[in-house]
């Protein structure tokens, strides 16, 4: 399928080709997508710059010049990504990058704000590190876009992806390599830097699940016996579910990371459901995870503490101990109210880990309910774009991968924000794009790159608009 009409001059909004006297074939002009993106990027830059101005005026009363340089450098990298998209994926979704930039930038502003409150400067300042990580994430995203020119390649490497995912998951358990931070053994130390391989495993596993389920869906969706209105899968098809369940429980028990375990397992269940159309998988999976979590709460002290701190957060015996962080986060959000204290005017630094796990409560305090609604709406829009790719996808692998990546973001937001706002027990996970943390940023920007590639694949498919002669003619002559 030719990308451009032979008669279409570059830069023209629409090219039209008259095939017969009655039918006109119009071909879409890809530049339109990128122009929308550029416009949205300008808007996102403006909002992020505004957030930084407010943070610095609110917290220290004047502007510091070096931040203008950092932000400009990041903006240049974003524009490089934009140009790469114009060349390698001109029809990619125009909303994904601006949303990610806006979330990333607002997070950076709030992290900087808390650095000021904690009087952290130089390399000690998490915002400076976050700038470096954002740059690395953008570069790796660009690299991913250039390397993966056709998403079908990923399907071919599904077992490599599985291996990568499992190795990444197991890395922190290797003695000497793994590090325990805040009770969870999910870090790998590499001398100067450390990272959370679990964040990358999320991407690798989504690729594996999509590739595996596309080929295995037939046998997995074979009907078994009916029980309580559910059509149960055949016993021999339980294999993969048990494997993923076991991996999740391993993460839960050995790495003491409830959030990541929930994320992987939830991701797998939803992709399994979408691939097979069997609701019974979800019911069985949730029962399995519920039983596992219940057993864990009985035998693992840290799970029990989380559970008690969630259910009985305001018990005076817990507010200074296991529910301290949760309650301080709630106090911060309550102090923010509907309109927030204003950037740089609140006291988000009271809450422990307010730059990473609790960045949402920090933003809730300073931007108010209004700001949190806007942030949640941005996530919803981002996930919606992913699902749109899944709806419109030309092949089942890309559809499954798109829904997996989109759902991974949605589930992670739900687990973190739900934990901070007491919908579910608190688990340690980063808020995508917002929270301080390099691994998470890099992994999520790679998700952006993959979704961009998938969406370009969708749009690069046949897109012939056949119009009636009269309208086409009037359009041509207009």
């Amino acid at each position, binding site marked *: 399928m030719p990308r451009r009409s032979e008669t279409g001059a570059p830069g023209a909004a629409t090219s039209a080709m008259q095939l017969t006297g009655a039918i006109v074939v119009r071909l879409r002009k890809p530049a339109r997508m990128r122009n929308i993106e550029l416009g949205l990027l300008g808007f996102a830059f403006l909002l992020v710059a505004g957030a930084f101005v407010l943070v610095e005026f609110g917290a220290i009363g004047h502007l510091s010049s070096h931040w203008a340089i950092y932000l400009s450098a990041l903006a240049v990298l974003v524009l490089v990504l934009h140009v790469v998209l114009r060349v390698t994926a001109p029809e990619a979704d125009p909303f994904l990058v601006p949303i990610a930039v806006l979330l990333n930038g607002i997070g950076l502003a709030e992290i900087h704000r808390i650095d000021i409150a904690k009087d952290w400067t130089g390399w000690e300042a998490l915002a400076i590190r976050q700038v470096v990580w954002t740059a690395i994430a953008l570069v790796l995203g660009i690299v991913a876009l250039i390397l993966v020119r056709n998403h*079908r390649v990923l*399907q071919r490497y599904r077992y490599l992806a599985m291996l990568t995912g499992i190795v990444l998951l197991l890395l922190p358990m290797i003695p000497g390599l793994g590090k325990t931070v805040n009770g969870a053994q999910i870090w790998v130390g590499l001398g100067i830097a450390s990272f959370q391989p679990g964040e990358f495993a999320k991407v690798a596993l989504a690729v594996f699940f999509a590739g595996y389920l*596309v080929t295995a*869906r*037939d046998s997995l*969706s074979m009907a078994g016996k009916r029980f309580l209105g559910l059509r149960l899968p055949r016993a021999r098809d339980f294999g993969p579910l048990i494997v993923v369940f076991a991996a999740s429980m391993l993460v839960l028990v050995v790495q003491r990371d409830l959030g990541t375990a929930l994320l992987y397992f939830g991701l797998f269940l*939803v992709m399994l*459901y*979408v*691939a*097979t*159309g069997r609701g019974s998988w979800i019911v069985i999976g949730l029962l399995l995870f519920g039983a596992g979590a219940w057993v864990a709460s009985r035998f693992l002290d840290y799970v029990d503490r989380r559970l008690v701190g969630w259910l009985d957060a*305001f018990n*005076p015996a817990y*507010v*200074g101990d296991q529910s301290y962080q949760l*309650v301080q986060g*709630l*106090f*911060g*959000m*309550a*102090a*923010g*109210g*509907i309109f927030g204290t204003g950037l740089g005017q609140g*006291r988000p630094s*009271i809450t422990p880990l307010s730059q990473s796990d609790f960045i949402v409560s920090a933003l*809730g305090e300073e931007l*108010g*309910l209004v700001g*949190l*609604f806007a942030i*949640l709406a941005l*996530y*919803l829009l981002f*996930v*919606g774009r992913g*699902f749109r790719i*899944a*709806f419109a*996808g030309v*092949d*089942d*692998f890309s*559809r499954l991968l798109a*829904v997996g990546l*989109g*759902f991974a973001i*949605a*589930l992670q*937001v*739900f687990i973190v*924000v*739900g934990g901070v*706002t*007491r*919908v579910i027990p608190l688990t340690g996970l980063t808020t995508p794009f917002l929270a301080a943390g390099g691994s998470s940023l890099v992994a999520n920007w790679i998700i952006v790159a993959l979704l961009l590639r998938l969406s370009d694949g969708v749009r690069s498919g046949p897109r012939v608009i056949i119009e009636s002669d009269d309208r086409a003619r009037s359009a041509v002559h207009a």
Partner: protein
Amino acid sequence: MSSPRANHGSTSMTKELRRTSIIVLVMIASLFVSTSIIQVVDSDTLAAAPTNSRTFYANNSVNRGPILVAGSPVAYSVPSDGPIAYQRVYTDGPLYAPVTGYLTIGQGNTGLEAAMNDYLTGTNGGQFLDQLNAVLTGQRPAGAAVETTIDPAVQQAAWDALGDMTGAAIAIDPKTGKILALVSKPSYDPNELAVHDTAAVIQRYNELLKDPSDPLIDRAMNGNLDPPGSTFKLVVAAAALEDGYTSDSTFANPAALQLPQSSSVIHNISRGTCGSGDTVSIFDAVRLSCNIPMAELGQELTYQPIYEKANAFGFNQSIDIAGGAGLASTPSAYPRYLDVPQTMLSAFGQSDVRASPLQMAMVSMAIANGGTIMQPTLVDQVIGADQSTLVSFQPQVFGQPIDSTTAQALTAMMVAAVSNGASSGAQIPGISVAGKTGTAQNGTDEANTLWFTGFAPADDPQVVVAVVVQNGGGRGSTATGSAVAAPVAKAMIKAVMGQ
């Protein structure tokens, strides 16, 4: 990639995608709901939580208004160099602790500091123009000053008279309800809890909390209240007089009385009869503070009239002494449903009857005031940073539990009790004092709780007082209200009368 199949073609996956979209929508929608609940519905409750240090920061980031006693600040703010703009300072901290309360980082607030917080921080609705002005002019907003009703001379007299005893004293102007003295011992220094070091505050707070003498509790109105003992006879006598009895109504006068349906035997405090006669009047039973005739009266009167009269005096309800702003007493208790022997015990203030000095002062106030109780209050006025009066004290009637005839009859009994009866410890030369002592038993081996409540001068009351001293005032099991509690009351009355 995938071949089109009837079951699992691209079109069939659309249904699953749509359902998954709904799952995502529900997940994110739950977050819209949870954030709304926290930041809108529950935000005030969360802000008021005692462990919320943000509230402390907010309270001390403005020039918090002072709390004044007779025009002099007993609590005020000074600029601080640290991250919190102002430091709270208390002059005579322990003396005024029941009045000011404390203002801590993360351990809650009490007293007027908590109840009048909106005014003190300048965030009350009435101070909106001040706030607007502060924003426009770039000045730091300043809070309003709270002027209390406390008379420093009476407060100091009660403090000195209580000495090192465990107890509390309260003095109220019966005509207006203004609280003139509010003292509790042992006390604490609010300055120690006002420091900006969270760890130090927690440590000191926990020390005070674990201190067996409970210094944080304002015994004048809170805590585990004591049985009122014989001071409660005033309530029972009032119920009787309003129920057709007179001061001269008589009862049998044995030296011991076995309670019905029970093997318990009660005695008068003298272990003998109440006076020498075969019978004894209500007047003499109150004057000489005898238990047996009061128990007989309780049995005849029955439970219900006593219960209703106690409630009319203010029992079983929390009294807010900051005009509804939230400085509330622990309700004094006259239990619901007592059987006959319990009712007889309650008639002299035992059984499960509990009372605060504030409550007993209100009983005396009704008697002193011709039957009317004025709403007790601690706040005289609130003066904004621009010197405008935001709140001005207006006397309010709390209730009228008895009529003036009953009040006169009870006054006569209380005058006789002091001049020629069991409460003689309150006599002041030249001043006619009306009063009633109480010596409440807390168990067989424990020291008694000693009481006094009354007013003076009897013919034109200027002040009503109530005093409680726990653990016999440290003077063993033979200490009486007349010997230990009455002198504290005397000191307060003298201070009011300018002696």
